[in-house]
């Protein structure tokens, strides 16, 4: 324990260093241990400080620990500072324990809800040839950068209690519901604008031309785009691969165009 007494405290500057390094976090992504090397890369300023006066063996132990597998930054920075190698096993356990739930939260809120909202809005402007679309990808990036920046210090200050706090307050659940509703309204509103399916077939009965598309429009505007989207939705729900659906759309479009239905 004696090395702990001469240790310097981790300050704002160190956490900021972590943030800048986090911006290059996944550059060495690999199939064996995913972002392990990236993890050590981000933790380096912390480890340098904590293990400044330590023996070589202790440094080796710390480095090996972080090369294991994957990331949770603020929390492990706090633990390294408090206990260093004495807490080695606990640090590894926290990494594994936090990785699952936190990555899951991040994936569902950021990548499955917010990111698609911004992408759809951007695509809607881009398809009209309006350069305003450029704002949306960068706006989303700004949100993720801010989250990363505050996530590190939040994790460091609150330690593992941070996750419990999130779990106990319903703020995250409410946030996800709000984002989901916003997403559903936007997707619903974009379908008539962005999905284009028109029946060009015309039936002639007793020399009267019946334009099928006109009848469909009479039932409900944008009926076909809605149906096609819901079919895609059903197929995805039934675990059909998106590549298979993609190729089916292409093949069916060619066939139906060929027989002059579309």
């Amino acid at each position: 324990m004696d090395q702990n007494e001469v240790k310097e405290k981790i300050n704002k500057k160190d956490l900021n260093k972590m943030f800048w390094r986090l911006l290059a976090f996944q550059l060495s992504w690999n199939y064996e241990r995913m972002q392990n090397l990236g993890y050590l890369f981000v933790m380096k300023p912390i480890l340098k400080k904590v293990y400044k006066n330590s023996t070589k063996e202790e440094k080796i132990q710390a480095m090996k620990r972080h090369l294991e597998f994957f990331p949770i930054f603020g929390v492990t920075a706090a633990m390294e500072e408090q206990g260093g190698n004495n807490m080695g096993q606990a640090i590894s356990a926290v990494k594994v324990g936090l990785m699952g739930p936190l990555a899951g939260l991040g994936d569902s809120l950021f990548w499955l809800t917010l990111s698609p909202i911004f992408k759809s809005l951007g695509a809607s402007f881009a398809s009209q040839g309006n350069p305003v679309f450029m704002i949306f990808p960068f706006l989303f990036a700004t949100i993720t950068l801010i989250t990363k920046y505050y996530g590190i210090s939040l994790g460091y200050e609150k330690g593992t209690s941070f996750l419990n706090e999130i779990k106990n307050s319903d703020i995250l659940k409410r946030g996800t519901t709000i984002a989901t509703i916003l997403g559903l309204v936007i997707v619903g509103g974009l379908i008539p604008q962005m999905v284009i399916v028109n029946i060009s077939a015309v039936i002639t009965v007793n020399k009267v031309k019946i334009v099928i598309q006109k009848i469909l429009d009479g039932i409900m505007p944008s009926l076909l785009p809605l149906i096609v989207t819901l079919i895609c939705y059903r197929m995805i729900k039934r675990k059909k691969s998106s590549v298979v659906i993609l190729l089916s759309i292409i093949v069916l479009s060619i066939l139906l165009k060929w027989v002059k239905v579309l």
Partner: protein
Amino acid sequence: MLTKAVLLGLLSAIGYIDNYGPQIGMSNSLILGSLAGLILGDFKQGMIIAATLQLMWMGVVSIGAYVPPDTITGTILGTAFGIISGKGVVAGVAMAVPISLVCQQLSILLRTITISLTHKADRVAEEGNLDKIDKYHLMGGVIFGVGMFIPVFLAVYLGSEYVEKLFAIIPKVITSGFSVAGGIMPALGFGMLLSFMMNKKLWIFFLLGFISNAYLKIPTIGIALIGIIAAFAYDMFTNKDNGNMDISKKGGLDL
């Protein structure tokens, strides 16, 4: 074409490094496609092709260890060939799909090559040498950057004239079929989104958005505003009794 091929290759390298690094939006299909258009002298066409590709690929997100079809090279080359061939969205979709599938394999290969960096880092760790870590980590960026520069550069530099000829021979039935497919593609992205968001309680909000545009013709930003109001109204009503109290009782988060 050499300069353009180099620039498009660099765009692919930047897109890749951004995707594995800062994620500041440079790996987004809209940005990549419109910049590819700018390089080829048709910014507007670039963004229109990119919009279709973006929606087509919206459901394609990388989660955990799953490697999706490569949207970065797919978007750059799809947009580039769409413009070079003069066929726009049709050629864009037709080229982007197979290219993204081939480059997916390439990306898996690159992620296997980076295992060697981890093993090098293991050796450095045996010496307790923290300073050498940076070098091996950042080398990953070089591997991904160079690894994705090469295919895009070669495809544009060597492939452009063939793409033009290719689309000249393809029968009209096929190309007009692709044009129809291009219109339907966004349905796949939206379907994918719905599979993440739709649930028994909230589907009515999907209908709200649809009606706002199909019947009332409200434009996109208006719909987003309706969405914000609907979402916060829902939150207010469902958390009227317990929500706010809960947070104050437990201390909440100092965000």
